[in-house]
């Protein structure tokens, strides 16, 4: 028990890889065994993160459960792990969605072994980003998560997967290039990659040691700020860096889309919160308007883009752009309020940040749910074209009910989780970024429009007889699939009705770190 207590984070981080290793030695043909090993193996990190949640000290400051191991001594980089309320929330989201995604993949029959191993490595990559307190380790896991995702899309994706997977890879690596260079610059300048140290050193640095000066420090900081921002903006994705997303999401296998929308996008937002705001408070304040502009553009264009789709999966994909825009809006509000003496601003920006972080969690739940539901119907009909559906509600009443419930969460219906977080973001941003927040309401309006359009085209209207009879007869959602949706729906409702349990943890991080 002591061992578990002392190594809680490294256990959560490396158990998925260990499970993958176990699967590696299982025989290729034992598909059932492989599936169950993967599922049960992924439940361990979930159990441990629930344990982490209960042990988390709500009154503690700074990072908890810290662990530090030697890694790359020559570069003064250590495997330094730790959580605060922000990373804890994200860890829970990751460890929750991974078993669900694995359960959702039980229908996969092609090369199950490789598929499950990639999934578990993917989980490790994402967890590593959330747990890292060392900039180099952060980057290591940041890039590491790319590889399994690339192969998941490239190998198990649909028709246009080659194009989509390469685009995903090149976009993200291209975006990370600036991040890589900026991280190297920080490491060279300060001789350490330890985040808590850099939090103290970098924002107040007045000269770059060890680097031949060819630009004033302020300019260097601004350039490095944008290098960080672009890397994370690609991942979030913020308009205009979002174009990889609809392709990748649409072509990925169902479970891949669930993780992609549910967790991978959060890595970008997490980068903003963990690195950009604490490391570049002044630059963030200077450019908060630009960030807010991009966020608003993402909200509006994401909603319009979504409304214009005829492909169900693309519609959901664009909705991610729309929803993640609110996260960035909340972050921009907090950036703008940095160091301000305005009392209203000081009181408002924590609300916006709370909203942004909760929105990350909520979008993780609802987007994963939506992509899964699209996958459910695609698996049965082999089409995602909205015009091919219509009037399916009487055929699949349970599926229809679940779809409406999840859509409503995405739409922001009061009583479900989306409303809580979006309201907090809007409430917090309003006094700080009044104009942008007001304009973004147009996007919120169209959120309603595209969600209702999706529901209408699939469930309502005249029934497409093609799906009613014979070999194409649509079958109801099965027990395994309901089991995937049940935890998501329970959490959606729970947070919608009584969000305090999670907001307490998030607020701890907001008060302590920002």
């Amino acid at each position, binding site marked *: 028990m002591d061992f578990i207590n002392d190594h809680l984070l490294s256990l959560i981080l490396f158990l998925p890889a260990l499970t993958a290793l176990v699967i590696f030695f299982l025989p290729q043909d034992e598909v059932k065994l492989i599936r169950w090993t993967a599922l049960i193996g992924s439940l361990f990190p979930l159990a441990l993160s629930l344990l982490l949640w209960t042990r988390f000290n709500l009154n503690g400051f700074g990072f908890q459960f810290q662990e530090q191991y*030697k*890694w*790359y*001594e*020559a*570069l003064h980089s250590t495997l330094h792990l730790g959580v605060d309320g922000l990373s804890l929330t994200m860890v829970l989201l990751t460890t929750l969605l991974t078993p669900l995604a694995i359960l959702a993949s039980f229908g996969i029959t092609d090369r199950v072994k490789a598929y499950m191993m990639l999934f578990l490595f993917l989980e490790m990559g994402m967890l590593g980003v959330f747990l890292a307190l060392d900039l*180099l380790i952060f*980057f*290591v*896991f940041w*890039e*590491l998560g790319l*590889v399994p995702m*690339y192969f998941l899309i*490239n*190998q198990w994706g649909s028709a246009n997967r*080659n194009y989509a997977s*390469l685009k995903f*890879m*090149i976009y993200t*690596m*291209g975006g990370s*290039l600036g991040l*890589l*260079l900026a991280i*190297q*610059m920080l*490491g*060279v300048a300060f001789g350490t990659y330890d985040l808590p140290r850099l939090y103290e050193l970098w924002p107040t640095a007045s000269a770059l040691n*060890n*680097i*031949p000066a*060819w630009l004033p420090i302020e300019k260097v900081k601004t350039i490095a700020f944008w290098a960080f921002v672009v890397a994370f903006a690609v991942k979030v994705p913020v308009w205009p860096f979002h174009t990889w997303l609809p392709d990748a999401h649409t072509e990925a296998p169902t479970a891949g889309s669930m993780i992609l929308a549910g967790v991978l996008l959060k890595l970008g937002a997490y980068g903003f919160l963990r690195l950009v705001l604490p490391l570049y408070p002044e630059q963030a304040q200077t450019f908060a308007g630009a960030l807010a502009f991009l966020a608003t553009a993402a909200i509006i264009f994401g909603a319009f883009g979504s409304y214009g789709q005829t492909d169900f999966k693309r519609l959901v994909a664009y909705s991610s752009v729309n929803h993640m825009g609110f996260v960035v809006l909340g972050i921009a509000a907090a950036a703008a309020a940095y160091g301000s003496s305005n009392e209203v601003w000081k009181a408002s920006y924590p609300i916006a940040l709370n909203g942004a972080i909760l929105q990350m969690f909520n979008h993780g739940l609802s987007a994963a749910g939506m992509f899964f539901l699209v996958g459910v119907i695609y698996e049965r009909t082999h089409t995602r074209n909205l015009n091919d559906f219509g009037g399916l509600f009487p055929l699949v009443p349970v599926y229809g009910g679940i779809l409406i419930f999840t859509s409503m969460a995405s739409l922001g219906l009061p009583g479900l989780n989306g409303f809580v977080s979006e309201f907090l973001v809007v409430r917090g941003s309003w006094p700080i970024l009044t104009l942008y927040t007001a304009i973004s309401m147009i996007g919120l309006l169209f959120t309603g429009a595209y969600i209702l359009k999706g529901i209408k085209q699939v469930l309502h209207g005249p029934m497409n007889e093609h799906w009613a009879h014979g070999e194409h007869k649509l079958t109801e959602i099965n027990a395994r699939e309901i089991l995937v949706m049940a935890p998501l729906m329970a959490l959606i409702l729970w947070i919608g009705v009584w969000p305090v349990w999670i907001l307490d943890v998030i607020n701890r991080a907001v008060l302590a770190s920002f």
Partner: protein
Amino acid sequence: MTFPILSVIVFTPIVAGMLILLFPEERKDEVRVTALAAATFALLLSVWVYFTYDLDAAGYQFQEAYNWLPALGIGYHVGVDGMSAPLILLTGVVMFTGVLISWGIEDRPREFFAFLFILASGVFGVFASLDLFQLFFFYEIAVFPMYLLIAIWGWIRTREYAAMKLTLYLFVGSVIALVGALAMYWTAYQNTGVLSFDMLQLEQANFSEQFQAAWFLPVFFGFAVLGGIWPFHNWSPDGHVAAPTAVSMFHAGVLMKLGAFAALRVGIMLLPQGAQHWSWLIMTCAAIAVVYGAFIAFMQEDMKYMIGFSSVSHMGLVMLGLSTLNKTGLTGAGVQMFSHGVMTALFFAVTGMIYDRAHTRQIPELGGMNTVMPFAGIGFIIGGLVSMGMPGFSGFIAEFPIFMGVWYVQPWVAIVASISIIITAAYIMRNIRDVFFRPMPENLEGHITDVNVLDKIAILTVCLFMIGIGLFPSLMVPMVQTGVDNILRLLGGA
């Protein structure tokens, strides 16, 4: 007297090669088994050297010194430091895997293995040499068999051209370097009154700054030709393409390191002020090689040409690390030499396996390899990730400090050179996708068989090194650092 382990390593291959020549020609299996036994023995000894090297004591270890021509100050002097010990290990690994991969050679295997082993002895000899004359001696021994190996067993379309081109380039380079070495020898005699080729003595020779600045370029570039430095790189892709698989592995995996290593040992370490004087030029050439090599690789349709130019790009990174002349960059260069060695050996091995089966290396004509040879496919993917500098693999451990080292000197060079990372990712991913994962062309259907167990052992061996170092940099980095400390001492810093 202690066991002369380095001499045993250096001479094992050549003795085994001679032994193999004594076998009757038709007893091919005996030849192969003997070759494998010798290679395994050399690998085990090099692993032994690597892991028993005393990190705390640092410096040159396992030294042996004998007089050879005392009147001229020529001796036989071997020893390894933190820079050369990984390269000895690398040579052992490539030799072992090279023999496994070449098991299927039916055309005069006896002579093939004999020449390959002479080459291996030369390579081991250069890495272990502490005497300048002896270094040249082994250097030529390493280069000469290349000519025969390519000209006789190479790809029939270009082998004569490529063998000639390669040999002329390398001989010209080494002759220029030799002139520089003789200049050092005589000047050291004038300065100190001792006639000696011993490099530990030459380090103490107090060459004047003008002398160093004048002679650094010929010596460095004379050797760096073999390291594939831009603009003298273009023998190298031709050589890679024409060579048979095991020779390509040796060529890209080890021989190119020979150039970089000799340029470091003779150029930078004996003429440190010259290196400081000219480091900007090396850095420029290296940065061009890194980006230009990646672009050219991106344009290739022949897999071997693609890997050949990617080697130019990656060896450019080694040169880039050397040109920084600081601890971080040099450490990165040292690790990159090993990492690139095993990675590119793996690339050529898998390419050879594909070529043997499909009889084409044209990327557009290939496809679907992963369905028939998944083991090789996974190996190639891991090699690709190393090549891209993906974290978790040895490539990242090497490239990251190289770029960091450049930051200390010229930030904009780091920024420009980093473009190569994206280009590399693009061509590697495209190659993996096209060759391994798209549907197999009809004319290949049914003709492709899986790789055999020897190939799998070879692939597994190199993959273990790439992943091991990637996850645990402390397996190699501290050792390289002791070597770097020695270089920095000569450079007058730290």
